[in-house]
């Protein structure tokens, strides 16, 4: 048996016996760093939960001792959004930002696709929800992209090509928002776009992760059976007792199409050769979606770069964040100029909540495996899609509804 096979078999035995696999001791270092990173998040979370509980207890007369605190917090419980023109509960808004941030930290996605529909559900006008979400994405991605740049995970050439497409798409998208608002039914159009995009992404994500889950399950049963047979003396089966490759050769759908496009060039940091047209088109699509849906587009950008172009996940995430910052800046600015729907106060409150939540989410997600996280995310995406479908197909509570002069709500 080769030394690789011996090592693989030993790893498999260790896995089956439940012992941790950490030959390089990397997990220990990561854990130490994680504990430090988690400290600030935990303190912030505990403080936020403590304040919320104290306010609730005081407001409901449960504890006389916290009445003063409750009345103080109560006077700050509402926040008036100057551009959206609505007053909302501050704790609900921070909690929403925190919750979506948690999910984004947990699943490694931006969370914009959840934020906008949830904002609409708490009464923020759809156009303001999308535009303000774009604004908060700038801040949320800024810190991420600086960290990725320090680690060398940003392919500037690829990022700039995506960005050119993103700015074009974003500019067109903002004009499209104005046209859709003028036609009327902007919220319906927005929901339809959400249903299409989230439905496709959620279904693909679930399909891929469930396939991986089933494969892993079948593989572990096979290995366990082989191990039992080897232990019973069937030594010739030892050669078949191998661990799975660290990363399987990735299947790249549409790769041949992408490889045949003209204007091929090398993207050195990403370690691949591709046509300028592909990232340009991808950026255009994501820019459009940023304007229409208020999303960062990472949930499309990262899978497209990894599955179609074969870029490593880390570089795909770093480069996606790079273009996301600038595309969101462009969209926010255009929305402020063209539609006047960016609510800076809303964006800042969401940003603070989501940034803290992302740190907590990252800690919560550590014990879960990649495909398990993707199944949960896929289910979440499908749940949001189903909710939006119901909103469109079920009869509304009233046949007459208030709309804005521009046609949307």
């Amino acid at each position: 048996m080769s030394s690789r096979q011996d090592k693989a078999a030993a790893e498999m035995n260790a896995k089956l016996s439940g012992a941790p696999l950490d030959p390089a001791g990397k997990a220990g270092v990561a854990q130490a760093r994680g504990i430090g990173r988690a400290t600030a998040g935990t303190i912030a979370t505990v403080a936020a939960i403590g304040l919320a509980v104290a306010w609730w207890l005081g407001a409901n007369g449960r504890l006389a001792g916290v009445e003063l605190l409750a009345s103080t917090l109560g006077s700050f419980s509402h926040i008036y959004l100057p551009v959206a023109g609505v007053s909302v509960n501050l704790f609900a808004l921070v909690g929403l930002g925190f919750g979506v941030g948690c999910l984004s930290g947990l699943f490694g996605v931006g969370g914009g696709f959840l934020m906008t529909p949830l904002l609409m559900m708490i009464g923020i006008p759809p156009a303001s929800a999308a535009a303000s979400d774009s604004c908060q994405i700038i801040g949320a991605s800024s810190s991420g992209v600086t960290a990725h740049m320090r680690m060398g995970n940003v392919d500037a050439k690829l990022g700039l090509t995506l960005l050119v497409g993103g700015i074009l798409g974003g500019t067109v998208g903002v004009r499209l928002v104005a046209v859709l608002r003028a036609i009327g039914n902007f919220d319906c159009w927005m929901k339809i776009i959400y249903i299409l995009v989230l439905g496709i992404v959620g279904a693909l994500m679930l399909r891929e992760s469930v396939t991986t889950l089933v494969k892993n399950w079948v593989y572990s049963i096979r290995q366990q059976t082989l191990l039992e047979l080897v232990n019973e003396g069937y030594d010739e089966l030892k050669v078949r007792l191998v661990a799975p490759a660290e990363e399987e050769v990735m299947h790249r759908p549409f790769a041949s199409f992408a490889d045949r496009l003209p204007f091929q060039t090398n993207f050195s940091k990403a370690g691949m050769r591709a046509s300028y047209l592909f990232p340009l088109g991808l950026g255009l699509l994501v820019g459009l979606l940023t304007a229409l849906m208020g999303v960062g587009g990472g949930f499309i950008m990262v899978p497209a770069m990894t599955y179609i172009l074969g870029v490593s996940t880390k570089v795909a995430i770093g480069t996606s964040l790079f273009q996301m910052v600038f595309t969101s800046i462009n969209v926010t600015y255009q929305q402020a100029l063209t539609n006047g729907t960016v609510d800076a106060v809303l964006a800042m409150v969401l940003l603070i909540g989501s940034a803290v939540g992302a740190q907590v989410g990252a800690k919560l997600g550590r014990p879960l495996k990649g495909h398990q996280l993707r199944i949960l995310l896929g289910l979440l995406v499908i749940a949001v899609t189903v909710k939006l479908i119901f909103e469109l197909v079920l009869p509304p509570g009233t046949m007459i509804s208030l709309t804005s002069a521009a046609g949307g709500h």
Partner: protein
Amino acid sequence: MKAMRVAGIVLFLAMSTLAMAPTAQGDQASVDTATAAFSVSVAPSEVDIDVNYGGGQVRLSGTTPEGTQVAFKVSSPTTETYLGKNGKVLGVLWMTTERAKVEDVPEFFAVFSSEPLQEALAPEELTQRKLDPSFAPLLASAKVVSAGENATPVPASEAKTYLTGLRDARITEGLYLVDEKDVSVDGSKWSASLSLPPAAPEGRYQVTAYAIANQHIVERATTEFAVKRVGVVSLLGNMARNNAMAYGALAITASVVIGLGIGRVFSQGAH
């Protein structure tokens, strides 16, 4: 001397006629005697929409002739309101299929009284003064036209559907209020507390108060208060409208600074 005697007889006859006149004329007499006694005042005279605004509270009070009931209405300035009628598209999707514009209706309207109005006031008074708790007289003066560049009047049956929908939406938002018991009258003093919902619009609100006796309005007094944006809310709202370039740049800069700041806090926590 004779002339004075004749004048005295005429005066006596006139007073006797007034004393024996029907109820409505008797009410008119009580108006005359109570003119100076009825009043309304509001505090505060300005409700500020600041960053913590979650609705406002104003207190209305005044004096009224003994034995009268009190009612008042509060109205924000009239605006144009756009409404959409939902219908099925492609047999599956519920979307706005028609739109209309309603003119000359206030966004906020409240009717308060010390007694149930249907019992306290004659029907014609309810209609004339727009005090009907159904808001029907208020909406009757509204103009409903099709939305769009070439606005044309909407047929009466359609207009009624839109106005009913508008009334229901306003009631749901807490913008159309009726309270027929919380005006307290204590001798010659009356008072009430009005809660403005968070969605109450900006503007000068007209308050018209009435003293009621024998199912008729006998006195009327008016005042007003303002709801206006102040501080950061006013600054940012005006900036977003009037200086969008600077506002956009400010929003982006603030987002970058806060994002990088939070990232720095957590990265320091990691070391």
